[in-house]
């Protein structure tokens, strides 16, 4: 199977604080990986580093995406190559039309791939279809990006963007946080919809409950900036039962 994402010995931090300490991770197309771990273990940092956030400094190691050195690319180039980050806290951009951003993003990617740009009519049709499956009111297209959206609406909007952009690697950072059970189910359905042999999905989550609806092929436990355990979905259940302290103890033992 073709390797999509290959993280090797990744050391990274923000300012003087080192967060990732030699992290290794391989994610192949068609797989769903869940990365779990206590607060501060480096889950979000990993997501931000892969997406190219300028605040995070890579100190050592490599991140390759379909064989290419991802760390060499600007954030927008990574996005156009097919890396999608679903933000834990999607930012509000007042006045910028949600549909406008989405269309500009879709077309930026299409241009990059040498495809014709999608026209407004086609775009709207597609967007409305995707929104219907996500249970989103089309009115959200005409609002400012995340402007005044509730927590759940913001997360659905992230899934909508993912659905429209059809990434090859989707990293969803705490997409389940702050959602009620109905919203969680809708978001999970949106993710399952995108499960595909050509696509890799990484779920970053603190809790097991999302995994009830999106069944992962692999579960990794992150602690102090390293993956300390990997396993199948049963590992998530074990964690749920025993808590993260158990992992720490297991590591220290």
């Amino acid at each position, binding site marked *: 199977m073709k390797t999509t994402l290959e993280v090797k010995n990744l050391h990274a931090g923000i300012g003087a604080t080192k967060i990732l300490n030699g992290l290794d991770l391989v994610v192949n197309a068609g797989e769903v990986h869940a990365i779990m771990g206590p607060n501060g273990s480096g889950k979000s940092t990993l997501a931000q580093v892969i*997406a*190219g*956030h*300028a*605040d995070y400094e890579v100190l050592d190691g490599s991140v390759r995406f379909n064989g290419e050195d991802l760390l060499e690319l*600007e*954030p*927008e180039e*990574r*996005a*156009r190559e097919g890396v*999608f*980050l679903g*933000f834990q806290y*999607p*930012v509000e*951009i*007042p*006045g*910028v*039309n949600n549909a*406008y*951003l*989405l*269309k*500009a*993003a879709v*077309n*930026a*990617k299409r241009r*990059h791939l040498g495809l014709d740009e999608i026209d*407004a009519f086609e775009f709207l049709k597609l967007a409305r279809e995707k929104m219907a499956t996500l249970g989103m009111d089309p009115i959200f297209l005409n609002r*400012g*990006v995340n402007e005044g959206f509730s927590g759940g609406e913001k997360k659905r909007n992230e899934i909508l*963007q993912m659905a429209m*952009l059809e990434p090859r690697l989707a990293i969803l950072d705490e997409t389940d946080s702050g959602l009620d059970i109905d919203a969680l189910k809708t978001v999970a359905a949106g993710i399952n919809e995108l499960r595909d042999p050509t696509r890799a999905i990484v779920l970053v989550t603190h809790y097991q409950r999302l995994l009830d609806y999106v069944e992962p092929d692999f579960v990794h436990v992150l602690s102090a900036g390293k993956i300390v355990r990997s396993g199948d979905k049963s590992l998530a259940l074990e964690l749920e039962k025993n808590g993260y302290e158990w992992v720490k103890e297991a590591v220290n033992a």
Partner: protein
Amino acid sequence: MSTDPNKLDSLVNRRYEHGFVTDIETETFPPGLDEDVVRAISARKNEPPFMLEWRLKAYRHWLTMKEPEWAHLHYPRINYQDISYFAAPKSDKDRPQSLDEVDPKLLETYEKLGIPLHERARLAGVAVDAVFDSVSVATTFKGKLNDAGVIFCPFSEAVIEHPELIKKYLGSVVPYRDNYFAALNSAVFSDGSFVYIPKGVRCPMELSTYFRINAANTGQFERTLIIAEEGSHVSYLEGCTAPMRDENQLHAAVVELVALKDAEIKYSTVQNWYPGDENGKGGIYNFVTKRGDCRGANSKISWTQVETGSAITWKYPSCILRGDNSVGEFYSVAVTNNMQQADTGTKMIHIGRNTSSTIVSKGISAGRAQQSYRGLVRVMPQATGARNHTQCDSLLIGKECGAHTFPYMEIKNPTAKIEHEATTSKISADQLFYCRQRGISEEDAVNMIVNGFCKEVFKELPMEFAVEAQALLNVSLEGAVG
């Protein structure tokens, strides 16, 4: 409204593109100003004696005045004797009677400016009164306007053809004593537009003027007067450009609007005078007095401006809300980049009962530019039921620019409801990263965020102006980030 990102790319990558000089022999007065110059201007335009008298009174009053210093602006003293006060294209003597008679070179200029007179006018249904340097050159669609009873002509023509209207209204909103620059303009104004909408008439098309300063060392002093009779309606658009020159050029215009009972005037400006280069060399000094008088009950005057040009901008389009239930609006986007400075805002003077005003000001400052919002909301004791809402936002791009807010509220009536809000912020790194993670380049993301910031104002502009304004904004901010 959406802008093609490709187009945006090409827009941000171009320089001030209106900076070419048309080679038309101009007949220009030698620099200097005295009573003889004022007389000569008046004579050149075959003005009736009342006009000359008014100019001379204004000139004499100007001599007693001092240039204002209260604005948050820094520029070297202007030597008013170094400026030429009249420049006309040679062909002025026998004025063109139709477009066919217009000097083709001039038409070519308009083509370059993106205003093909016939095409654009016909397709868009816009009548254009183009002011090239100081003299109105051509006016289209006279016929259709005539049928509606609308008068839209160069100011100099109105002085001769409609002296009774000029006598009645000229200086009735902005008296020549009003301020230093208005007095100067009153003495030496060369041309401008005159609009008269008769009672009950809805002007059948949007009226538009393009102003352009071309000759070196000339000042441009247009005078615009718009009168909307009872129950009439007009939308007027004004565009401004100037060529690149090393020296600073002076522009001191006066615009007077009169709205009678139930009348409505919408006045939109896209100002793109040459802003000077990155080091502040050259550029237009833009000192403009714009004021609208809601003289009748239920009248409405709305100012919308997109100001991206000029080295110095000093401009406060204002509304005098005299009529009961009258409405004043001011929507503004001002962009200053590099070394530009702008001190701009509005005055809303509430006099009539149940008058209301809305102010939305969006300032964007980048480079080493300084920008100030200066506004006055005054509610007179008799103005029962006055309402004002002011929203004043500044966006900062870069560490060396400045954004300042000086709102004055003088409230003398206890039934007034006045709300003022102001915010200052910068484009956040999180917003930029979010857009880039979706595959959008940093420059496009900045343009997108800036356009979003200005949205409330752009939606007030007529469609085709809105597109132009958005494009201009992007050009103005070129190189501001990164």
